[in-house]
């Protein structure tokens, strides 16, 4: 197994400054920018497909029926954005661009720094107010459901989106979601322990159970949380026999879904401790 994790040596000065400004602590590892192969493959495939059809239609219009010019024009109009998209992605990718090869996500003890084309920005795990994670099933050795696209809103109003086209999300996505959920859990629990309901998208964690659109699933019926993946990922409450109970919500559209999972587990552990 080969891992693209780089040593702490040779951090760029802007990265060091950004990290120290937010007290991120020690540098742990870095993830280099990746060449967005799926994006290039998709745009390249469409460019070739429509390009061949457009070329054929143009040839047909020249040697045959001039009415085919209409079809040729339409096909060229579809080919052009596909080809431009392919070239745009290729020229900005680390495979071609020397500058893009310098882009990295640097993970520190208390957060991360993303050095990219638009600048270098630092975030702390505990400054993430909302995290939306789109999951994918990776067949690699990293395991099953892993975030491939993450949207973040920080407490200071900054927004960030990081996808599989930027870095290896099978590894960084997993790390990011775990660290953010661990940082958010004490805050959510502290708020809950004061008697407040805590809302995660369409789900609200209350003293009595988990509510979904006014319907409450009591804690006595909840055995845990399950995330299933079909075309998208869905989160459901399950009982102790893993039978679905209550709501099934789109995990990718749910803010702080991982914190919700940890919170339900923490409350269930506490309730089981009391029950014994």
């Amino acid at each position, binding site marked *: 197994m080969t891992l693209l994790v780089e040593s702490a040596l040779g951090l760029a000065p802007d990265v060091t400054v950004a990290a120290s400004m937010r007290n991120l602590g020690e540098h742990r590892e870095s993830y280099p920018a990746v060449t967005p192969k799926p994006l290039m493959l998709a745009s390249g495939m469409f460019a070739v497909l429509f390009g061949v059809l457009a070329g054929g239609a143009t040839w047909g219009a020249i040697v045959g*029926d*001039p009415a085919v010019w209409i079809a040729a024009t339409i096909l060229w109009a*579809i080919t052009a954005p596909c080809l431009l998209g392919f070239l745009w992605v290729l020229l900005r990718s680390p495979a071609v661009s020397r500058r893009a090869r310098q882009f990295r996500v640097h993970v520190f003890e208390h957060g991360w720094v993303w050095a990219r084309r638009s600048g270098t920005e630092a975030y702390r795990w505990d400054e993430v*107010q*909302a995290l939306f994670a789109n999951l994918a099933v990776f067949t690699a050795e990293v395991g099953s459901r892993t975030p491939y696209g993450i949207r973040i*809103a920080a*407490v200071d109003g900054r927004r960030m989106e990081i996808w599989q086209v930027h870095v290896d999300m099978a590894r960084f996505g997993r790390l990011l979601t775990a660290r953010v959920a661990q940082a958010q859990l004490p*805050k959510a629990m502290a708020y809950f322990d004061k008697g*407040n309901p805590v809302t995660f998208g369409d789900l609200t964690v209350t003293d009595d159970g988990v509510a979904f659109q006014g319907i409450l699933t009591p804690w006595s019926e909840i055995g845990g949380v399950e995330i299933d993946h079909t075309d998208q990922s869905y989160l459901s409450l399950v009982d102790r026999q893993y039978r679905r109970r209550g709501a099934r919500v789109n995990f990718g559209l749910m*803010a702080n879904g991982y914190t919700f999972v940890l919170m339900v587990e923490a409350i269930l552990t506490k309730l089981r401790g009391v029950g014994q």
Partner: protein
Amino acid sequence: MAKPKAGVVVGASVLAMIGVVFFVVAAFSSGGEVTCDGKTMRPSDVCLEVAKDGRKTYHNFAELKAEQDARRPVLLGALGGIGGLFVLAAGGFLVAGSRENKKDQAQIEAAAAWMRAG
């Protein structure tokens, strides 16, 4: 209405652009001139059509005008319809993106309550 994300705007713009291409092609195809082998005919011209079996047929201006005028609305309808579908899809994409962003915003604000308290 909340502003949709940049990706949604780009996607909607591409769809709308493809729709506009269909409209432009439809507009260029809507000219009233009568053509023979792609060339504009004058009322005094005669068009010779040679079939695959070598059979020759002569058409005058009036015959071709009637034939092409009957075909034009179908072509315009098809091109305009497809173009309209692309533009409608772009609009739908934008509206859905705005709604999703509004929902995201509500969730971000809801999280602020416990983030601040913790």
